[in-house]
């Protein structure tokens, strides 16, 4: 009897795992190769202060998702691993005014939140030294998750963190696999 119950529980666990979107056979992710380029990352004050706010705290719950403030330090810490060197600036340099091979400009296109999910859309533009557009790619990341007990703030933080993790992972993947940047290396 117990072995039958164990079978039921295993089947249910598998069903829940599949429904949650997690592959039972997790595949190890490969580490992206370093691009032999000197890069400049443009983190403008507007980008770093992007946030989504909703509600007044009286008739509707007050919600605040400071996506830009959370994203900027993480991008600054994570992206240098993809390049030979990376410097940060606050605005796009004038044509031929930088010694970087590629200039990366992120822009938050949209942020949208429900009680279940936070969706962040970031558009990446890569420019060459002369200011010509080499590559454009928008990525959409979503943060979901549940928290125990009550607490909208905790839920917002969890969604925020999850969305930012996904933005970083997708950005790294998109940048390191861009044919234009790979071509620039050669």
């Amino acid at each position: 009897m117990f072995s039958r119950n164990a079978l039921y529980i295993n089947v249910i666990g598998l069903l829940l795992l599949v429904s949650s979107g997690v592959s039972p056979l997790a595949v190890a992710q490969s580490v992206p190769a370093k691009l032999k380029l000197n890069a400049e990352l443009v983190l403008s004050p507007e980008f770093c202060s992007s946030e989504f706010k909703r509600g007044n705290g009286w008739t509707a719950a007050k919600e605040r998702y400071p996506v830009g403030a959370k994203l900027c330090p993480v991008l600054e810490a994570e992206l240098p691993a993809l390049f030979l060197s990376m410097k940060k600036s606050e605005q796009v340099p004038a044509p031929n005014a930088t010694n970087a091979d590629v200039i990366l400009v992120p822009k938050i296109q949209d942020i949208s939140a429900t009680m279940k999910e936070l969706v962040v859309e970031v558009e990446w533009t890569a420019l060459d030294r002369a200011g010509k557009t080499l590559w454009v790619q928008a990525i959409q990341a979503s943060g979901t998750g549940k928290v125990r007990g009550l607490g909208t703030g905790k839920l917002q933080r969890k969604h925020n963190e999850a969305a930012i993790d996904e933005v970083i992972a997708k950005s790294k993947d998109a940048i390191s696999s861009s044919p234009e940047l790979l071509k620039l290396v050669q």
Partner: protein
Amino acid sequence: MENPMLYLSRTRGTLVGARPPLAGVMRTCTPTEAYHRSVNQGSGRKPIGMRPHCYFVLALMALLPPFLCAASFPEYPAKTAKEYPGAQTIAGVTVGIEPLSDPAGQKHYFKEDFLKSNFLPVFVVVENASSGDRIIVKHDDIGVYAGEEKLAKSGPVASGRSTTGEAIAPVVEIGLSLPGMVVAGFLMARAADIRQNVVKKELRSSTLSPGQKDQGFVYLPLPKDPERRKHLRMRVRVMKVGSDEPIDFEFSL
């Protein structure tokens, strides 16, 4: 009512392989205990917290809501670019558009009537069928204009002025390719879910290799004057990587 699992753990030490001490002894017990005792008395089975089929019912309950949610905003059926009426091909790049002007269709896919907010959702498909060129599709380079004025050959249509300085009659200041944020601003008061659906269905900027395509909605602002709406034109601009010359596709709406 006592928790069945508590009952199980409390009694496990004494009742494994044995029947509950019912016979000849009258004592008070909880309804759960009575249920388990009555069930197990005849069969001699060990009491368990929940019947197996209950697990399946709970699992089904856990699985159902995502399916229901997914059904609430259906995906827009996309076709290849050439299948849309009036599709255009220039230098191996094909662009097809489909305005979703029918309020019933808008309600179906967005749960929203955009025309009330003076916006028109247009589904855009861009396919790169060129031999070797990569093209850049930027969401911000898709716009709408109205009237008899000539379209600026380059530069943002919203400015109403071409790069050569030639004045373009500013028939409308309807701006262009406003991100879904603006549209969704109108909708936000109604529901966050609707807004999120608007954002998710939006066309995203991308760089397309030969054989790739990009598709999604753009939400075009409409002039309030009905006369101007009759002469609306839409422009989709793409750029070849490494080239300064844009490729413009113009459509009547």
